């Protein structure tokens, strides 16, 4: 009889777009590869995620309203909905009873806020696998502070997540973390070293279609774009802060035929905030040299990456390792990154065509240098090294460990 695993998260993973979705999708594939029967259930906000499966559970009205009020704690609302939102609770109970999983994988700690009391209520005690993406409590503090939330609110929220993480770390049967540093933090929290495994973030090989390539070529031709600098990010506060801190709105250093291509949901976010209503000279001129590419399909994004000249990773905060970094390493393009962006990919700094810069002046100078420098071809050895970032390699040890559960 095959083992059954229920994978829970605060978002669906159908057509994964952001890093968290992609990581979880890769983990689900790993479970399938080793023979598990998997049911992936995301407790999600319909307004944010359009793609989902019949197994995913959308929030009830009251939970959705709560997210509108406090968008930066939406993951907590989703997690607590398992016990607090009657619609979500019913659906989750059904999954737990009818699917009857041997194990439950919790991606990030938030779902445990509601699942823990529900398991108690139902008298269930399945094997728990905790998939960490970050040490969430300090990260949540950074996000809430950047949104100027009141300190009392921040304190309570951070305490709630911190306590949940600590319980989960001690109670889980296997913990997988993204970075060595996260792993060390969990050991300090009391995690059993034998029950932990490092699974750095990875990517799948780029794939694209001729149609997508033509789409971008036409855009470049129509707008006289020759050199493309690419920034890919979700509208996640650390991505926004990083861009503002390391590049800023003054894109006058780009020549008329050069453009900053902005892809991912950050593109829509920038379009909203960089507008001339603010009477800010940076807002008024930003889009002269920047192109909003919006959210893209995997194939279109693949074509965009393939056609760009320089990838920028202006990441200054946030834990975990960044999928964008892995993509940039695998893309074999010129890359300008902060030291923080190379967190857990430190080895990549030795690859050719990579510039590291940690102040705005240095970062912009590095972009200019990268534009003006011919790309150096990788050796076979370097190619092989770069391939470490593929999911298949990054999750190799995780696969071995879950076989034994």
């Amino acid at each position, binding site marked *: 009889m095959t083992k059954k695993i229920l994978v829970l998260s605060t978002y669906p993973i159908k057509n994964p777009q952001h890093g968290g979705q992609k990581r979880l999708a890769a983990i689900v594939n790993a479970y399938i590869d080793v023979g598990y029967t998997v049911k992936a259930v995301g407790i999600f906000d319909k307004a944010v995620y359009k793609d989902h499966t019949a197994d995913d559970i959308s929030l009830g009205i009251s939970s959705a309203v709560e997210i509108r009020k406090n968008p930066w704690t939406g993951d907590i609302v989703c997690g607590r909905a398992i016990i607090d939102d009657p619609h979500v609770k019913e659906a989750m109970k059904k999954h737990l009873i009818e699917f009857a999983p041997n194990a439950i994988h919790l991606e990030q700690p938030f779902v445990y806020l509601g699942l823990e009391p529900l398991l108690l209520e139902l008298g269930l005690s399945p094997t728990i696998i905790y998939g960490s993406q970050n040490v969430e409590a300090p990260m949540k503090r950074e996000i809430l502070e950047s949104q100027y939330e009141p300190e009392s609110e921040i304190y309570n929220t951070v305490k709630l997540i911190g306590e949940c993480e600590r319980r989960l770390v001690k109670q889980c049967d296997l913990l997988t973390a993204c970075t060595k540093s996260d792993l060390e933090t969990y050991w300090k929290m009391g995690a059993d070293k034998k029950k932990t495994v490092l699974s750095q973030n990875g990517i799948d090989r780029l794939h694209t279609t001729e149609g997508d390539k033509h789409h971008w070529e036409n855009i470049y031709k129509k707008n006289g774009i020759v050199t493309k600098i690419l920034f890919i990010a979700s509208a996640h506060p650390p991505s926004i802060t990083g861009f503002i801190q390391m590049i800023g709105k*003054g894109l*006058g250093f780009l020549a*008329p035929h050069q453009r900053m291509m902005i892809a991912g949901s950050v593109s829509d976010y920038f379009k909203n905030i960089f507008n001339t209503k603010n009477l800010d000279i940076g807002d008024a001129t930003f889009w002269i040299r920047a192109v909003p590419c919006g959210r893209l399909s995997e194939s279109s994004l693949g074509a965009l990456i393939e056609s760009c000249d320089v990838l920028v990773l202006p990441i200054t905060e946030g834990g975990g390792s960044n999928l964008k970094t892995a993509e940039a390493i695998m893309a074999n393009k010129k890359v300008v990154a902060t030291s923080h962006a190379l967190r857990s990919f430190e080895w990549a700094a030795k690859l050719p065509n990579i510039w590291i810069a940690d102040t705005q002046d240095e970062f912009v100078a590095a972009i200019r240098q990268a534009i003006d420098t011919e790309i150096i071809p990788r050796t076979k050895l370097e190619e092989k090294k770069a391939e470490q970032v593929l999911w298949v390699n990054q999750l190799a040890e995780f696969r071995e460990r879950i076989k034994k559960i």
Partner: protein
Amino acid sequence: MTKTTWIDITDMIGWTGQFGGTQRVVYGIANEYVQYANKHKNTSVKFCFFSEKTRKFYETSFDVIKPMNDIDEVSKNDKMSKNIDTKERVKIIIQTYVPNRILSNAYVKRYGKTIGKQVYGIAKKAKNELGPKKITIINEPEAIFEHNDTVLLLGKPWDTPMMMPTLQLLKEQKGFLIETIIYDLVISLQPQLHTPVLFKDYTQYLFYVAQCSDRILPISKSSERDFYEFCDRMRLPKPESKVIRIGDIIHKSKEPTIPRQMDRQKSKQFLLCVGTIEVRKNHALLYYVYKLAHERGINLPQLVIVGRVGWNAKDIYTMYKNDPLIKEQTIILDSVTDPELSWLYENCLFSVYPSMYEGWGLPVAESLQYGKVVVASNSSSIPEIAGELLEYFSPYSVDECLHLILKYLDDERRTALEKKIHSNYSPTNWRHTFMQVNTS
């Protein structure tokens, strides 16, 4: 191969009114270029304009610019140009022609805008359906800028937002030179002092100027400084710069006449403040200076303000008009002829210029040409006009301004400075400006 200097006169095409500030500059420099080219046969000067619809430059001749109008024609607002949008134009017409008692009527205030919008909508629809259809036919030949040519931008290309991107593209293909005059950066760097309508177009224009100009021609060191600050903030390249002094000679071809609204007997002693009533010109400071003088028991001479009510100035205008203490001491003239302005300069005790920001500050130069003292603010370009010849105050200090006004109300001191101005200040003619612009 002869190098051609192309002068863009886009904002002069079809112009019928009195020249505004920038148009005087375009005309003044262009006229000198024509005269110079007539005498130097190896010099080639051509004129061009840009069509926003076809996104092309066309060749034209200097003759299309009508020479400066008869100076006794009533000064027209330079905002009434064909480039201003209809909404703004209607606003200006209403402010100019509709009496204040009607504008301040509660019923008009409440429903006026809605009714006006509906009437405008019906008129626009009727015009679209019944009127002739607009077709852009340009008979002039396309202007071809060659490798060695220079394109000189002296006017207001920000009114035709596609001009700079088009020029940039052409320059990349042909490699000609671009030289651009810089008036001021108030719209972009001090947006609180200017109507926001032009913010986007003007700021984007500056971005393109920095990226594609080979040389900028700021009209003051202050404008040069501001432009380079803009470049720094936007990480733009800094083009070479040559600060030029624009022509400011006043042509006094007619006898000065007393403005109709003024009484010769009552207007024996007055201070003069010339400039549109708007936030930037800082009429509020003068208001407080007069209030402070009252509080201290000082009786200041009458204040004559020459200027229409511009952007965001209704509040200060109302204060001047309704303050029982001030209204008796103030005359606001919203439209004067050049001979009337001459009379005002000639007969004032001295002029006051409290502006918070200028690219140059023409009323200061004008006042000096009449041999009059100017009590001026020390902001932006203003001290560059007369340097140490004048004394300045902070545009934010009522005390400093009042102190200087009182100082020059003293006949002896004022006369001494007038003599100094007479022997030390000389206006700039357009030939001099041209010599600075033309490097060939």
